[in-house]
């Protein structure tokens, strides 16, 4: 065993550092997770059938996570859509997500808005609240603070329309929980880069 002598004793299977004998007790295996950061990606795509399944399926197939996904046509001829994806991943996985999206045939361009810097993110929510008396007055007062508009009203309920960042809407929905929240519908994030250039 000529060359091995420089490497220490020939290793058995498995290597001694990672193995334990039965007497020592088996090392329980745990699934490891990495620290992640949240990024907003803007994906310009050809508006062809199945494109949404292609994008969303790539995330499930490769184990990436989607916090929010919105899609809408953005040209007059309806040929091109913008898909805005909020995802959390470690920096190396984020690089993979972008590269994997970029190599899909119908994808024109992928922009990491978070990495690029200044951008605007907005979400719209419709929030239904039911109640009477003080709850009703408090709901209206909070809505005013959050610049939420009343888009439907009955004697015993309101529907508010509120726009803002994820955090603002989370907070508004949380507050409505105290004053008769019934249900919520949210659009997911739409985002765009600041400044005069297209991202």
């Amino acid at each position, binding site marked *: *065993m*000529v*060359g*091995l002598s420089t*490497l220490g004793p*020939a*290793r*058995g*299977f*498995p*290597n001694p550092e*990672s*193995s*334990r004998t*039965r007497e020592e007790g*088996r*090392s*329980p*295996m745990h699934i490891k997770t990495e620290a992640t950061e949240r990024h907003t990606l803007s994906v310009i795509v*050809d508006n062809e*059938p*199945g494109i949404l*399944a*292609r994008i969303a*399926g*790539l995330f499930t*197939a490769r184990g990436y996570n989607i916090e929010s996904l919105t899609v809408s046509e953005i040209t007059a001829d309806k040929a091109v859509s913008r898909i805005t994806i909020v995802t959390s991943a470690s920096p*190396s996985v984020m*690089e*993979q997500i972008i*590269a*994997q999206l*970029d*190599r899909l*045939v*119908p*994808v*024109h361009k992928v922009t990491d808005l978070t990495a690029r810097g200044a951008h605007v993110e907005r979400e719209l929510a419709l929030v239904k609240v039911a109640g009477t008396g003080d709850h009703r007055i408090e709901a209206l007062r909070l809505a005013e603070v959050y610049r939420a508009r009343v888009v439907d009203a009955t004697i015993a309920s309101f529907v508010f329309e509120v726009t803002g960042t994820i955090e603002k809407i989370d907070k508004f929905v949380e507050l409505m929980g105290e004053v008769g929240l019934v249900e919520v519908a949210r659009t997911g994030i739409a985002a765009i880069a600041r400044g005069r250039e297209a991202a």
Partner: protein
Amino acid sequence: MAEKSGADILVEALCDLGVEVVFGYPGGAVLPIYDAMFRSGRIKHILVRHEQAATHAAEGYARSTGKPGVVLVTSGPGATNAVTGITDALLDSIPMVVITGQVPTSLIGTDAFQEADTVGITRHCSKHNYLVKDPARLGAVIHEAFHIATSGRPGPVVIDIPKDVQVATARYVKPGVIQHKTYRPQVKAPQSEIEQVVDMLAAAERPILYTGGGVINAGPAASQLLCELARITGAPVTSTLMGLGAFPASSPQFLGMLGMHGTFEANMAMNQADLVVAIGSRFDDRVTGRLDAFSPNSRKVHIDIDRSSVNKNVRVDLAIIADAGHAMEDMVRVWKARQHPKPDTSDWWRRIAGWRAVKSLDFPESGTEIMPQRAIRALWEATHARSPIITTEVGQHQMWAAQHFGFEKPNKWLTSGGLGTMGYGLPAAIGAQLGNPKALVIDIAGEASIQMNIQELATATQYRLPVKIFILNNEYMGMVRQWQELTYESRYAESYSDSLPDFVKLGEAYGWKGIRIEARGELEDGIRAMLDHEGPVIVDCRVAKLANCFPMIPSGAAHTDMILQANEVSGTMDDEAKALV
């Protein structure tokens, strides 16, 4: 201009694209296409016995000729049977176009007879796919599909065509050069990046070129350029499983395959290198072993046509997005223009010589038993002068073939690397024989794998294809048994190949010649008899039953933790290691 049916448009487009052979199997949803092919008579159709075999045959054809393989199958089960081969082609970057029939558009979504959501099922196992609902779009889609399948990083493209679209009529105009609006793979790298890698190669004391299937995909000229690059830089070359043949195995600069069953010298050189230049290879888990111990002191350059391959498993210092051939051509040109002298790597080669002296591919031999490695070497001895095309199934025999059969040229080694598909070898050999009628084509098989597509014996018989099957029969799913021996204290759960057929009689039943080789002394004569027979031959070569494939880096171990021989093995493994593939 007269309108044509969708089926006629398809056939005409295939002819315009230079397609000579289609591998397929008819069924209800492709009858219009089969009728159009029958009437046209311009495309040779090879009738396989199972749709999976059509895809592997197309892969074998593609890998051995450099031309795209074309598959035609029906809807539902026809398409789902093709899924394994489509995935195989995706993982090994094989150019392939798969045409699937679909139920008429009016029936899609109704759970109609033989309906399957083919575009849904194949969306993530193909490079791209289409459902064509308008015959007027069909011609353009077919041309685009071939463009996508064959350019950039090659891969399988699926075109799903409902039966009414095959019958309805439209005009077809042969399109010109395709300028896709979004798909534009980068094939040439910026000059500055080429200069950087040349600087790094010129300055390196312990460089190594780590090459893969991308060099083969870049065409035979890329293999020539690799030889030239190795010659002028003096760097050693190691190859992945998929890259074998791009660099001549007989070259003194070749260290053999690296990775899990690679040579000691290749893995030690990767571990000790100060510069790794990866060319058309993708740092696969079989290659790297334990990631945090992979080539720890090297700077790394990754030349790949697919940006998503870069930094996927291993972070590199320089990424060059380009076709391997273009990149090497540019590197050689810059190197020569600067008149770099050949770097002095003599110390590095002295160390490599020390690792080589371990002779990691040696194997013990005794008695009349045939060691499988001996059988591969005997096969090489008897055939290498004819530059044969070798296909394999998946398992121990595949690794022994990779280790012991030396390949001198590209496109001669066809194996399922990424997906590891048992049953690949026989249909791949059929496809390769069709693409290379004069070549000697041998499927090196195991007795378990060969049974996964054994029905294709009939296909070879029908088309008078003189393929040879050389079975290393050890009566075990050997690689499964080897892992059970190494990690589960030899509890051989379901890995014994019970109730094996008599392969000689089986071959004869299909019109093949059958030969059995049982003792060491019969090996050379048996191989000669196989080669002397003009038609197809199946050889049942009985080999040592418990031989294991070494060297081996256990899953999740470092390159320096190679097992060289069986006596180094303890037979247990903790849960962390067991969970790795």
